[in-house]
Structures are given as structure tokens and as C-alpha cells.
């Protein structure tokens, strides 16, 4: 992923009254990158996104986006950005095609090129058959596609998606992400916020936010690498009992159920997963569980989150 930075933020902060929503964010995003913001609800993802597209003014810090200084040149930036809001924000009383037309007009497409571009966009997002439908009659997944279509009709250099797949079924989410990567491959830079780990993993790089602070920035692989050797996966019946037994152990920083397995993140600096596995098995047998199994496993982004949330200082990869 090489290329000149499309977004550069320095100490970007925003507070609402006393509440600090975004706290000293330093960022650099390269052209063509799919960059994710990961964090629980209220972590400041939406606020950070709005700061980066110039919809909100920062209370401190500065940012350059597509070579334009924010907030001074925010108005000029709009034409280059496709912004898909978290909540569906298109006109329910206009048809799919009319919504696209309106977007094409306000984003300054020439009357000459408009019909072709709209036809292309309808085709690309499989909306051609539904062009005369109103959004009110579309399902959540189709609304999402329409919103993405509208956000891209003017071929923006920067595509900003605020929790685009919230409330959409997993199948549709996969299709949606395929579109996102296609757009990135065509040269668009994509900023996307999510709280789905399986989506964050697909991003080229992610920025993890906790209470407005960027606690880690890097590729998913880089982030999880810091936790290599600290995850043990346990299989035992009944699972509930195993979880109860494992949670009681001081060596386990967090215990989560993953299907039939139990995912254990070990506390930092004590043991490696290989060393800990036999001890965990002994403990489980002592607790009365029969034929438990345990082996070292790969950490995931959830583990990174847990570790960061517990105040661990993971190596912050260069932004």
C-alpha cells in the first residue's frame, strides 16, 4: 500500500461542552487504502468521520484531506467526497432514480454526462430494476446499496462510510464489502467505521478508538501480532462450566465463547500459550470437566481490543 497521503490529521480533537468526543487523533491515510475505524458505540467514530469530511469543526488540531486544509476549505472538499451517513438519509418520497439524479445534480455533474452516469450507477449496484421504487419500499440491504450508489455517483476520490452495514444481514454485508474493495481498486480511498470485527479484519488498516482516543493504528495482522502466543483455545463440555472455571483463573485476562470453543486471552507477561495450555487443562479437570482439550491459537482483533481496554500498552505501529 504505497502512495501519497490523502488524509493527514494532527492532534485532531472535538469536544461537545465538557464531553471530549475525539481526543488528539493523529492519522495518515494513503490513496487507495480501505481504512477502518473500529470501536464500540460512543467511541467517537462518527464524530471523527465528520471532522475528517469537514462537517464538524475541530476544537483543536488540524487536518489536510485531499490536499485541502480543514476546516477552512471544508466547502471545497465536499465535491470530492462521497459520504454515506449512518442513518439512511435519502429522500423516501423520491424514487431510486430521482435520488440519484438529485445527487448527480448537486454534486455538479454536467447535464450531458448525467444520464449515462446514472444508468451506469444503477447497473453497477443492481438497482436498474428498482429505479422507479421509492426507498420506503426497499429492504435494509437495498437501501444500503442505494446509499452507496448515491455516495459514488459523482466518482469521489474519498468515500466515507459511517457504519454502512449496521443492521444488514451477513450475506449482504459480504456483498457490500466486495463493492467497497472494488471501488478502492479503482482508486478511491475508503474510510469506513464499523463495530463488526469480521469487517474490520478486511480493512487494509484500522484505527481502534476507545473513548475518543486512538489506541492502536495498523493493519489487522500488525495489531494481532502483538498478542502472538497469548491465546489458548479450549474445548470442554459443558461449555458454561468451562467458562466459569477459566474466568476464575488469574492468568486469564478474558474468556469468550466462540461457538463450542472457549477463547482465552492470557494475562500479559506470565506465560506463553504453549506453557499455559497444560495448566489450563489441569485446572479444568480439577473443576470436574471431562476430556478437555486446549491448544495455542491466533489472536484476533477482539483480543487486541480487550487487551487495550484493560490498559495494556501494545506497540503502536507507525501511523
Amino acid at each position, binding site marked *: 500500500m504505497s502512495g501519497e497521503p490523502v488524509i493527514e490529521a494532527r492532534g485532531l480533537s472535538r469536544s461537545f461542552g465538557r464531553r471530549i468526543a475525539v481526543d488528539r487523533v493523529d492519522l495518515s491515510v494513503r490513496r487507495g487504502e480501505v481504512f477502518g475505524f473500529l470501536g464500540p458505540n460512543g467511541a467517537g467514530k462518527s464524530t471523527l468521520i*465528520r471532522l475528517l*469530511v469537514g*462537517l*464538524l469543526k475541530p476544537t483543536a488540531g488540524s487536518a489536510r484531506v485531499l490536499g485541502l486544509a480543514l476546516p477552512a476549505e471544508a*466547502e471545497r472538499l*465536499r*465535491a470530492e*467526497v462521497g*459520504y454515506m*451517513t449512518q*442513518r*439512511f*438519509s*435519502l*429522500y*423516501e*418520497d*423520491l424514487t431510486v432514480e*430521482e435520488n440519484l439524479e*438529485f*445527487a448527480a*445534480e*448537486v*454534486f*455538479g455533474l*454536467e*447535464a450531458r454526462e448525467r444520464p449515462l452516469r446514472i444508468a451506469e450507477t444503477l447497473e453497477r449496484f443492481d438497482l436498474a430494476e428498482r429505479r422507479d421504487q421509492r426507498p420506503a419500499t426497499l429492504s435494509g440491504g437495498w437501501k444500503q446499496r442505494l446509499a452507496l450508489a*448515491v455516495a459514488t455517483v459523482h466518482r469521489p476520490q474519498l468515500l466515507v462510510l459511517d457504519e454502512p452495514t449496521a443492521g444488514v444481514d451477513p450475506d449482504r454485508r459480504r456483498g457490500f464489502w466486495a463493492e467497497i474493495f472494488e471501488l478502492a481498486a479503482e482508486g478511491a480511498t475508503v474510510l469506513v467505521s464499523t463495530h463488526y470485527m469480521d469487517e474490520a479484519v478486511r480493512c487494509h488498516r484500522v484505527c481502534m478508538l476507545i473513548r475518543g482516543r486512538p489506541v492502536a493504528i495498523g493493519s489487522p495482522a500488525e495489531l494481532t501480532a502483538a498478542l502472538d502466543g497469548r491465546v489458548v483455545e479450549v474445548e470442554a463440555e459443558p461449555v458454561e462450566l468451562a467458562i466459569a472455571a477459566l474466568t476464575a483463573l488469574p492468568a486469564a485476562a478474558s474468556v469468550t465463547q466462540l461457538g463450542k470453543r472457549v477463547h482465552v486471552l492470557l494475562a500479559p507477561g506470565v506465560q506463553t500459550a504453549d506453557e499455559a495450555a497444560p495448566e489450563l487443562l489441569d485446572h479444568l479437570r480439577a473443576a470436574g470437566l471431562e476430556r478437555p482439550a486446549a491448544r495455542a491459537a491466533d489472536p484476533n482483533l477482539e483480543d487486541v481490543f480487550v487487551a487495550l481496554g484493560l490498559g495494556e500498552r501494545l506497540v503502536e505501529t507507525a501511523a
Partner: protein
Amino acid sequence: MKALRALRALPSLPALPALPAPLRRALAIARKELRQLMRDPLTSGFIVGVPIVQLALFGYAINQDIRHAETAVVDFSNSAISRTLIGELEATQTFDVVARPATEDEARRLLGEGDVSVVVLIPADFARHYYRGRGAEVSFLVDATDPTLARAVQASTRGFEAHLNRRGEALVAGAGGAAARPGMRYSVRPDLVRVRPWRFSVLTYFNPELRTPVFVVPALLGVILTTTMILMTALSIVRERERGTFEFLIGTPVHRFELMVGKIAPYVAIGFAQILIVLLTGLLLFRVPVRGSLIDLALASFLFIAANLTLGLVISSVTVNQLQATQLSFFFFLPSVLLSGFMFPFDAMPRPAQWLGELLPLTHYARMTRGILLRGAGIADHLPEAAALLLFFAVTLGVATRLFRKEIG
């Protein structure tokens, strides 16, 4: 001119230069707005329905052709001439004689209880006065709790009076002398003879203050525009906030000034459409006069519409949902109706109310439309009013520009 021709001759100039981006975006907003309006049956019904319904409602109230008012006649004279008079009164169809009480007290009681709305008193010496040419006086007592009725009776008797007296004059003129007139038969001296033997006095009861009805229609034009213009612009913007589409709009390159213009423009057209509807309906149903120039009326209306639309923008900037916007619009609408001289005569209002009234666009617009429609005045005769509207527009535009945020939260 030469330079212009030279410019046109330049081959490099495109045949149809594209509109500047801000205008294009404002137009896009306006087009979208119209589309939504047309699609919303309630709103489009509102645009056409409000003028027609209001005009019909007020049209009945201002209709001077009151017919069949229930009337009690007390005929103390009981003479041939008084019976002729009663017959002629009934023939006008304005009065329906439904009671013939014997005493004035009883007639007043009927009036007080609402059994009749008009009492006609013909005094005992009526015939004598008539024949002596002194001017025979007939009293009409009218229940003026309904001022329209009172005005109608007033107008009707005045017309009747004039009609009877004209007939008298014609007889005088036709016979070439006083002797030929029926009213002159017993007159002693010709120089005492009055040409107006009929004299009706109309007393209005319960509400002696009456207004001239023709004032209502031109002002109604303004009332209708106030209702629709302020409310509709305010709603059209607040609706975007409420439905969340504002969040989409702010992400687009649409500048807030373009948004304001694009939101207002369709309503200017709608305002003029409403004026046409009111004028046509008024003309067809109620024969409202249009004495002045329509261009002057259009100019005055343009100023008034502009003033109302910017006020709608201000309202939309300080409210967060449609309910608030509606309430605030009506908060402005009521004083407009009450203090502009539409409901009550402006001159009869207490001073502070007049000062308040002067602040309202409707007051000035009503004066202009009355002048233009009824007196045939021009906009040049109403420069202070035009200036007041312009000032109101400028101030509200300034406030709207300051308050109108293209921002979230």
C-alpha cells in the same frame, strides 16, 4: 451594441453556456422540492384548497346580498302608503316579513330573543309626513351582532331610499312642477318641498362599529399567502432535519445560500399561482373589482411573498421539528390576521396595537392590495408600504442568513 455583436460572433463561445454551479445547485434543490410537493397529495391540496376554501368561507361573510332576513314590521301608520312600502321592502327579497307585532316593545323583544334580525318601525305620522313632503322617516332596527347583516341592511335601505327618491324626482321633472308629485299634494309652499320625501334611518344594535366589507377580499389575498408561504417554507426545511435528509444535504457541495434560494424559489411560483386562484375565484364568484394594474399587484405581491418566505426561513432555523415550526408560524399568523386591519379596522385599534400592526407585512400588503384592486392606485402611490415590505425582507433575510446553519446537531 457593437461589442455585444462582436462577442456573439466569437466562434469559441459555446452555443449554450452551462449555468454557473451555484445556480445549478439551487435549481436542483428547487426541482427536487417541486417533485416532492407534487407527490404529496396533502400539500398540493393545501396549495389549491386553502385559497378556494378561505375565499368561499370569507366570501359568504362578505356577501352583501343578504337575502330573506327575518323581519318584524310594526306599522303604526297602517296607511295605503305604508302598506305599499312594506310590499316594496318584501319585493327586494332582502326582507322577509315574518311577524307583525302590535307594539314596539314586542318587536324589540323579538329582536332581543333572536326571532327576527330586523325590525321596521313605521311611525303613526308616516303618511302625514309623506304627503306633506317633509320626509317620512322609517326606522330599521338591526341586530348587528352579525355586522355583515347590519351592513347589508344599511346598504340595501340606502339603495332602496335612493331608488324611491329617484322615482320621486323623475315624477317632479316629468310633470314640470311640484304639483304633479304625489308627495306634493298637500304641500303649502313649493319652496318647502324637499326632493327627498323618503328618509330611512338605520340604527344598528349591539355592535355599532361597522367596517366596509370590500376591505376583506384584497386583504384575504395576503392572509392566504401568509398561511401558506410562511408555513410551507418553514416546514420544507424542518422536514429535512426531522427526516434526517438534512444530513445528506450537508454532505453535498450545496452552499447554505443556494439551499435557501432553492427552497424558496418554488414557493414564489406557488404564491403567484395562489394569487391567480384567489383573483379568479373572487372575480367569478363575488365580482371583486380589479381596478388597478395587475403588474403593480404582482410587484407588491412579490415583495410580500419574499418577506414571508424569509420569515419562514427564520422560523425553520430556530425550530427542530414540524410541530414547533407549525406552532411558531401560527404564533405569527394570528397577530397578522388580528392586527393588520383584516379583522378590525386599523384606525379603531389602540395605539400600541397599531404600532405592532405596522411591523407586520400583512398590514402593508393589505393596504397596497386595497389601493390597487379597489381604488385603482399604483405601486407609486404606496411607496411607504413597499419600502416597509422591503425592509422587513432585508431584516429577516439578514437574520435567516445568520441563523440558518448547514450543520448538524
